[in-house]
């Protein structure tokens, strides 16, 4: 009996192996009109709650299925139309505050709103009149009112992100009761507020009251995905909130079958936890100038890969068209020798910095950390950083030097080149650094490292395992000034373990500053103490004043000038020392599609690429 069972098992395995060996190849790119995109993630979302989490591919997919009011162009500083067509700051009568050329008249805005009787800024938004949801229903300002209204009402939407995005909107609820109205449409109190909306414009005009800072509109315009009222209103109740932890079956159905206003719709039949298939909407309201669809790619299939090497080989072997993940510069040589491969070596927007713990809480102070409180000591460390060397060795040349003002050079309206005041020649820098340190910590041990109270000056730099090479090169560079540094693992939750608690010497941190985020990021990085990104707890009153002035000015030109003034102040603190800006390297195949566009700060699969790609005609 036992023998028989054994034989049966053996035979089943034998048959299984034979079956598996039958050479039936999987056709990896069967659809000619579909762009196959490899995405290296842990998982794909299978439910598409409109305000998805911000991790992984979820926000990308959400951004394709749903739309925000506007998109922001970092280069021009303009809000580009999406659902919204035009927007204005308006006066008390709802009249746009614009110059003769139609641009925002900031001088006039400042004049009208700078007095204390105005508690808010009023904004008028006109939306396109030809937008439909993917189920065919028209999109009107009622949907926009509904979206912002529910986002601010935590009785109906328990979505912390939405509450945060709308914190500058002066439309408030307390326990489900509206305490302040900040949204006005034809149907919702516009006339009573003094905003005269003509009946023919009732579906396309909405007014908002926002906090009196220029940055208020940014998250409202670009972060909040607009929801279809007719889909959500019938199911959302205080018992079944929009982001409920235990949604009803009906709500779950809506999560899994999204109705959006975006350029693509989800193929719910074919999508799974392993792939997400999107189809272009041919009735999308935005088109090219010639009336053809704005997006050239008809169908997109995002395929989940959980291992980067497998994804890279999948691309090389023609299983996918695009790899929507930035890859290490170490892979460049692998791609360069291949035909049919497009390499996007896009300038990055992310500045890698070395953060010094300049002001630890009293319980975490020690003699060596106290040295970091000395600005001259920090200056010596900044001088010892050789960005060229790091770019060459760590990034294999795929990067650029970062400004000490921590702003990208491409942001020409407010980049300040004067922030970089240190000498550029590295030998001179090291000499200068040693000169400074000789006055602070002149004693050295037999290995040439500087000593403090009989002990070698040695700091740990927190980093992830992938950042060990940067720290190793910093170790070499700082050896030239007699300072010892070593890698220390950041761990999974460095903020709560080390950074918020001041329990570190130095850490690596990536930063991105731009006009779209300085209102929030400058305070978070350089001003606010506590649980913020100001890990080293920098305190500088002049800097605080300047940041506040920048945040609260109502004149964009003044704001630009203040950002310019802040950059040398940041550089002069030697607190977040720039190391480099790495390029974003990504790859695509050109055997089926061409026309990939390289965009700063993005992988090859970006909005411009989707608009520009054309199929390669087979011979």
């Amino acid at each position: 009996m036992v023998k028989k069972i054994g034989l049966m098992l053996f035979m089943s395995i034998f048959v299984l192996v034979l079956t598996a060996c039958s050479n039936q190849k999987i056709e990896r790119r069967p659809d000619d009109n579909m762009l196959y995109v490899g995405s290296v993630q842990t998982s794909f979302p299978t439910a598409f709650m409109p305000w998805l989490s911000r991790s992984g591919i979820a926000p990308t997919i959400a951004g394709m299925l749903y739309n925000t009011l506007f998109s922001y162009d970092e280069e021009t500083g303009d809000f580009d139309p999406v659902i919204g067509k035009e927007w204005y700051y308006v006066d008390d009568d709802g009249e746009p505050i614009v110059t003769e050329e139609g641009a925002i008249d900031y001088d006039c805005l400042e004049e009208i709103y700078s007095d204390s009787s105005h508690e808010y800024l009023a904004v008028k938004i006109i939306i396109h009149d030809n937008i439909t949801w993917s189920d065919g229903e028209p999109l009107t300002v009622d949907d926009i009112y509904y979206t912002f209204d529910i986002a601010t009402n935590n009785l109906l939407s328990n979505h912390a992100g939405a509450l945060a995005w709308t914190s500058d909107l002066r439309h408030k609820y307390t326990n489900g009761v509206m305490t302040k109205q900040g949204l006005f449409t034809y149907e919702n109190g516009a006339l009573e507020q003094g905003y005269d909306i003509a009946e023919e414009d009732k579906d396309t005009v909405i007014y908002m009251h926002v906090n009196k800072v220029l940055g208020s509109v940014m998250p409202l315009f670009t972060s909040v995905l607009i929801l279809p009222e007719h889909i959500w209103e019938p199911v959302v109740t205080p018992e079944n909130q929009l982001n409920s932890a235990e949604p009803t079956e009906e709500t779950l159905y809506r999560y899994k079958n999204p109705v959006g206003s975006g350029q693509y719709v989800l193929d719910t039949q074919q999508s799974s936890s392993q792939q997400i298939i999107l189809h272009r909407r041919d009735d999308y309201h935005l088109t090219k100038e010639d009336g053809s669809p704005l997006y050239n790619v008809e169908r997109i299939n995002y395929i989940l890969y959980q291992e980067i090497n497998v994804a890279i080989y999948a691309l090389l072997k023609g299983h996918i068209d695009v790899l929507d993940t930035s890859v290490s510069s170490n892979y460049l040589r692998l791609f360069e020798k291949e035909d049919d491969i497009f390499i996007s070596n896009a300038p990055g927007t992310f500045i890698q910095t070395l953060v010094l713990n300049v002001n630890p809480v009293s319980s975490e102070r020690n003699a060596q950390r106290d040295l970091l409180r000395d600005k001259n000591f920090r200056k010596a460390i900044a001088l010892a950083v050789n960005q060229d060397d790091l770019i060459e060795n760590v990034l294999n040349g795929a990067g650029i030097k970062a400004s000490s003002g921590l702003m990208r050079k491409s942001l020409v309206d407010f980049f300040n080149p004067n922030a970089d005041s240190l000498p550029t020649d590295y030998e001179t820098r090291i000499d200068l650094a040693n000169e400074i340190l000789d006055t602070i910590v002149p004693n050295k041990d037999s290995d040439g490292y500087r000593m403090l109270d009989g002990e070698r000056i040695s700091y740990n730099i927190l980093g992830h395992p992938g950042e060990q090479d940067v720290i190793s090169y910093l170790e070499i560079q700082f050896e030239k000034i007699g300072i010892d540094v070593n890698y220390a693992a950041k761990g999974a939750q460095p903020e709560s373990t080390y950074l918020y608690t001041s329990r570190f010497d130095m850490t690596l941190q990536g930063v991105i500053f731009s006009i779209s985020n300085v209102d929030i990021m400058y305070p978070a990085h350089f001003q606010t103490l506590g649980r913020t990104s100001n890990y080293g707890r920098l305190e500088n009153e002049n800097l605080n004043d300047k940041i506040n002035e920048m945040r609260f000015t109502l004149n964009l030109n003044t704001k630009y000038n203040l950002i310019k003034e802040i950059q040398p102040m940041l550089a002069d603190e030697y607190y977040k020392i720039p190391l480099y800006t790495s390029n974003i390297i990504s790859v695509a195949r050109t055997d089926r599609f061409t026309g990939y566009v390289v965009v700063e700060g993005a992988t090859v699969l970006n909005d411009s690429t989707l608009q520009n790609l054309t199929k390669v005609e087979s011979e």
Partner: protein
Amino acid sequence: MKKSYVIKRILYSVFVFAVVITLNFFIPRIGVEDPAERYYPPQGNMSEIEYEIIKQATREQYGFDVSPWQQYLNYLEGLTHGDLGMSFRSGSPAVADLIIDRLPWTLVLSVSTMLIGLIIGIMFGVIAAMKRGRWQDTVLLNASTIMIALPSFFIALILSFYLGFEYEIFPAYTDPNMVSNFEWTFASLRNVAQNAALPVLSMAVGSIIGYAQGTRNAVIAVTNEDFILTAKAKGLKQNTIRYKHILRNSMLPIVTSLGMSISGLIGGQVVIEQIFNWNGMGTLFLEANNMNDYPLMMGIMLLLSGFTILAILVTDLIYVLLDPRVTVGDKR
């Protein structure tokens, strides 16, 4: 088998499981001041009052607004009717549903690997033991040394590269349509078998060597026992000695390692599943970990612990069947 022994073992297992449930709940929360903290959005320009409202909303959403003790009671209450809670991922799917979706696919890999490892491993082990000191034995010993040095993810990458990408004998990674298009048809089963081939092979190599070495050592040990000499002296047939006396008595260590590996069946192999894009429990656990999805992590850990306790219980009981002398804890 003594009834009292069985009851005692079962009660002991139930007790261990209760302890596991408690530890499973509290360990992730130890030392965490505010478990909801990781889910708070950035404060941005919000005032403290506004931010506190948002934090409270977050705590409510994730069920952290009540005391840990109350959370524990809620959790226990859910368990009594099979409710492992709702995942924190988008759409809040039930943890039990997520596990049920993934478990069969992990079982496809792990059961195939175990069967292949067991059958081929025992076969190799017996051959090596019978041919002790000859080339068959040398090959097995050397292979064991090499395989111990090679991690399974390395084997998986090599197999994926050569047998998958280069020579295209098997799919280099799982067809993304495999799960969504699965039906109980021959074509679909063949598709699963094809896609499972490389991951199974990657895991089976180590498994075969493990079982082979275990079997070899056990068989050699038993062969040197006095009762085998007695059997030979009695003039029993060679095959009777081999299969009835040597092999049966060599099975105890094999059963132990089998019992241990059964508990690993449902856990999946994180790295192997990752490399081959296999939609199993290993990757589910990784997702849960990366997303700080407490309920999902607890659900998986609970299942793994429960299965391990069950496997140990069954192993202990089988032990007694195989060797009546084994009555651990049973005072005579």
